[in-house]
């Protein structure tokens, strides 16, 4: 049996799954004592804790720490060389630029200066920062400068985060942001992991612990302590993975729509796997290299405020003013419209009174007005879904083959989750012209998503046979390769290395490694071939754990 626990800012949810079914679920308020909150919610499940084989947590604590600026102060030490001034990408109060430059092939053309690094570190330490992030331009092609800086300053700080360990992708400003955020939430994550451990001890659970990442996969507690930035924005991932699990369909292409109180999140699922943001997700306005689900958010939800604007005009959201009128709130909302239409069982009289002025304004009776509200909301969701899809399908391609054989996604159904999902099912289906499936247990989709997601990881390999060098930043590999290495050998080497060092990537489940990007370029200088430049990206196939998938 496996547990999923979602620690939100207000509520903590838990769900227990055994043999492909939801055995029980529980909910409690999140208090300041995390150990107590987690213990309580597990207790609420009423299960035999000795039988638990796996526990996965998802949390918004790191997200909240960032958004509420309640994270540790951290310094940054960056080297860039010629190019855009790194001061443009300064984050945090202590951003230091030092010498050192590396080019696109990973060749050093200006060295690090020891004293300069030491002085910068001293200044950051004196300002009271417990940790520091170290980033150099093109460090994913040659991490030696980041490593050298870490060696120089290591003793001064509680923790040092190196840019190349976070992602193997190119993008210096995003590497700076990702490294900064990772360092900033390290203390929060450390406390969280410790609290979870204590709660498990208290409940007598001796199962491996996992944490949910923004891409809808999970990783081990050890990896989560090192790379906490991956847990930021795991919120939408939790409920969408839950929706996918409950939906049960593993082939074809579907929209997944999560209707909340204030906003509606829309994503696309292909063969049971959610679409990932190609460049990385943005956290609190900072663009990062963190893999996360590609979703769009539209500012309408069940509790959005309705404004009639005259001449038949109708605006829904983006503001939310507490509960809907039918539940004692101050303003008319789509939930009130659903109450008037008899779909939602609440104080229909209060709903009618709240909607009446708006109905009058546009010259309709309250019932027709309520229909119009539901219609308008469905259209907003449809429009957002369509423009999201157009964006997804408009991505640039770089080969003639892809240009002439475009991979166009055409969803043919909708998975609808979130509070009012059941109530809006028919309207959404009619407006979008697609069949809509609302899975059972949608209320605990978030905890369920955490419980059932597999561990995932990704690695990036860059091989340059002229320089006889291979770099894989995620695995910390820098090694000499023979001049004769070809793409097939590189892929095999990557898959082998991933298996051998699975633990360091936070992988625990059995996994299928799949090559998701591969390219090889013959390097020609003068008129002769000098080597090959090869790039490979390998990921473990994301999805749901076997315990869930083998059963109907």
């Amino acid at each position: 049996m496996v547990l999923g626990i979602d620690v939100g800012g207000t509520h903590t949810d838990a769900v227990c799954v055994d043999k492909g079914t939801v055995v029980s679920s529980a909910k409690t308020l999140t208090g300041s004592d995390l150990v107590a909150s987690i213990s309580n919610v597990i207790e609420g499940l009423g299960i035999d804790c000795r039988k638990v084989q796996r526990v996965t947590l998802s949390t918004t604590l790191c997200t909240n720490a960032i958004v509420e600026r309640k994270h540790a102060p951290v310094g940054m030490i960056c080297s860039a060389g010629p190019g855009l001034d790194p001061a443009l990408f300064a984050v945090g109060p202590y951003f230091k630029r030092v010498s050192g430059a590396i080019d696109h092939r990973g060749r050093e053309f200006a060295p690090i200066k020891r004293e300069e690094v030491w002085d910068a570190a001293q200044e950051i330490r004196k300002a009271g920062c417990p940790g520091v992030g170290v980033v150099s331009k093109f460090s994913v092609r040659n991490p030696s400068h980041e490593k050298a800086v870490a060696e120089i300053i290591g003793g001064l700080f509680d923790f040092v985060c190196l840019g190349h360990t976070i992602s193997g992708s190119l993008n210096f400003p995003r590497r700076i942001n990702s490294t900064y955020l990772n360092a900033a939430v390290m203390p929060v994550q450390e406390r969280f992991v410790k609290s979870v451990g204590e709660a498990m001890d208290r409940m007598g659970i001796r199962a491996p612990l996992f944490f949910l990442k923004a891409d809808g996969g999970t990783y081990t507690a050890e990896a989560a302590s090192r790379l906490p930035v991956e847990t930021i924005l795991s919120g939408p991932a939790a409920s969408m993975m839950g929706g996918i699990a409950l939906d049960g369909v593993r082939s074809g292409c579907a929209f997944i729509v999560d209707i909340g109180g204030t906003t509606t999140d829309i994503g696309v699922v292909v063969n049971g796997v959610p679409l990932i943001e190609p460049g990385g997700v943005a956290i609190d306005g900072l663009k990062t290299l963190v893999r996360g689900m590609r979703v769009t958010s539209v500012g309408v939800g069940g509790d959005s405020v309705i404004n009639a604007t005259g001449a038949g005009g109708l605006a829904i959201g983006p503001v939310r003013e507490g509960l809907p009128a039918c539940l004692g709130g101050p303003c008319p909302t789509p939930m009130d419209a659903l109450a008037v239409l008899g779909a939602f069982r609440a104080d229909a009289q209060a709903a009618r009174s709240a909607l009446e002025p708006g109905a009058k304004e546009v010259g309709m009776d309250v019932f027709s007005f309520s229909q119009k509200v539901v219609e308008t909301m469905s259209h907003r969701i449809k429009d957002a879904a369509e423009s999201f899809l157009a964006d997804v399908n408009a991505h640039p391609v770089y080969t003639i083959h892809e240009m002439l054989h475009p991979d166009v996604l055409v969803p043919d159904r909708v998975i609808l989750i979130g509070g009012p999902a059941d109530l809006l099912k028919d309207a959404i289906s009619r407006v979008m012209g697609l069949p809509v499936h609302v899975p059972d247990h949608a209320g605990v989709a978030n905890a369920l998503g955490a419980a059932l997601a597999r561990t995932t990881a990704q690695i990036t390999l860059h091989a340059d046979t002229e320089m006889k060098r291979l770099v894989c930043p995620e695995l910390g590999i820098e090694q000499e390769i023979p001049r004769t290495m070809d793409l097939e050998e590189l892929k095999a080497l990557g898959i082998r290395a991933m298996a051998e060092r699975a633990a360091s990537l936070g992988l625990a489940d059995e996994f299928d490694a799949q090559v998701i990007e591969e390219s090889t370029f013959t390097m020609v200088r003068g008129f002769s071939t000098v080597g090959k430049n090869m790039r490979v990206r390998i990921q473990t196939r994301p999805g749901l754990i076997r315990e869930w998938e083998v059963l109907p």
Partner: protein
Amino acid sequence: MRAKRKTGLIFFPAYDWEISPTHPERKERLLYTQDQVLEEGLLDIEGIDEFKADLATEHDIQRVHFCVPDVESRITPSHNISAGGCIKAARLVLSGVVERAFALVRPPGHHAMRVVHGSRGFCTINIEAVMVEWIRKNHPGIRRIAIVDTDCHHGDGTQDIYWHDPDVLYISIHQDGRTLYPGSGFPSEYGGPQAPGLTVNIPLPPMTGDEGILWALENAVLPILDDFKPDLVVNSAGQDNHYTDPITNMSFSAQGYARLNELLAPHICVLEGGYSIEGALPYVNTGIILALAGLDYTSIAEPDYGPERLRQDPEVTLYIKRLCEQILLMWRARDSLRPPSRPYFERSKSIYYDTDSIAERQHETIKGCPHCPGAVRIDSAASTGRRILGVHLPRRACEACRSQAYRWYEEPRDTYGAVYLQDMDKDEFLSRYPKAVDPAFKA
């Protein structure tokens, strides 16, 4: 950070297209540029966005070229995409989605002339011209267009296509043709009898650096543009003036390219040549993108950049100053370049397709029309054994030229394997194959 001007990038590196594995125009060409652009995070800057190329259609290509025997036999899909990338750039700018656009596409196009028997100078179809004609068709409000070609090689293809066009100003700054392919581009080539002075060639001596090229820009190109008052400026942004380029002899730098684009402020840039794929292109393109977007580019530099090392010889400086004075004088006196009126003007020329080893002889006739740009007739015979007749009826053609053009088109019974007609105002492109039974022609 936010771009001062919204800028669109159409990046199409054609990672699966090459002329041959060791040819300069190979798959690897834009690899390091893409690495640099990604690592610098340029695409994350607010106001700089990447867009997918369009596909140029056969019709778009026929608007410019007489492809022999037909479009399909001459091009590969890579050409539809690189020309389509330029069209996308124009579409974005003219619909107001962006203010500036840069088509970083390959294969290039500026050596491709109106008649296409094969490929020359790595080019098969003229991607800027395909774009310019798309613009004139779809945005008739854009009447006057200036193409400023800053590739190190003379853009003899673009010059050929706009030789007789009074509405398109073609200016080329390049390494002197006595020292570099294609061997043309002298000030004496100033445009046809119906558009005298509207082709401007500025051949610069080898080893010209930032100072010389920017001098030519500020003291010849910009004053000419001020006079001409184009509705749209296009930069054929070849990057082979760079000091590390393996097939040219100039001393231009990434800083120079960025400054050039800041001063010229083109609406659309189109990548042309540039074969220092590691040492130049990553830095030059970063500089151009920042300059187009109105952002600070002063910290962009090649790893081995040293302004002192690249300083230009004072004699070169003096030569360029004198040359620019002459060019400007000639521009101002361009009306005097117009020959006395005649019913028809004729010229003959030889063209060599170096990529495909084809030789061509052309005899061109243009009506010396006082009312319109004049109908053009091109009689072309190539060493492939193919002889064709191409008739070009320009925009705003008068009735007399219109009937002349159709007579030219309908007349031939034999002699030619194919006869083509471009009716620009009607946007109709006709072709017929009088020797219908000649199997060799279409083979």
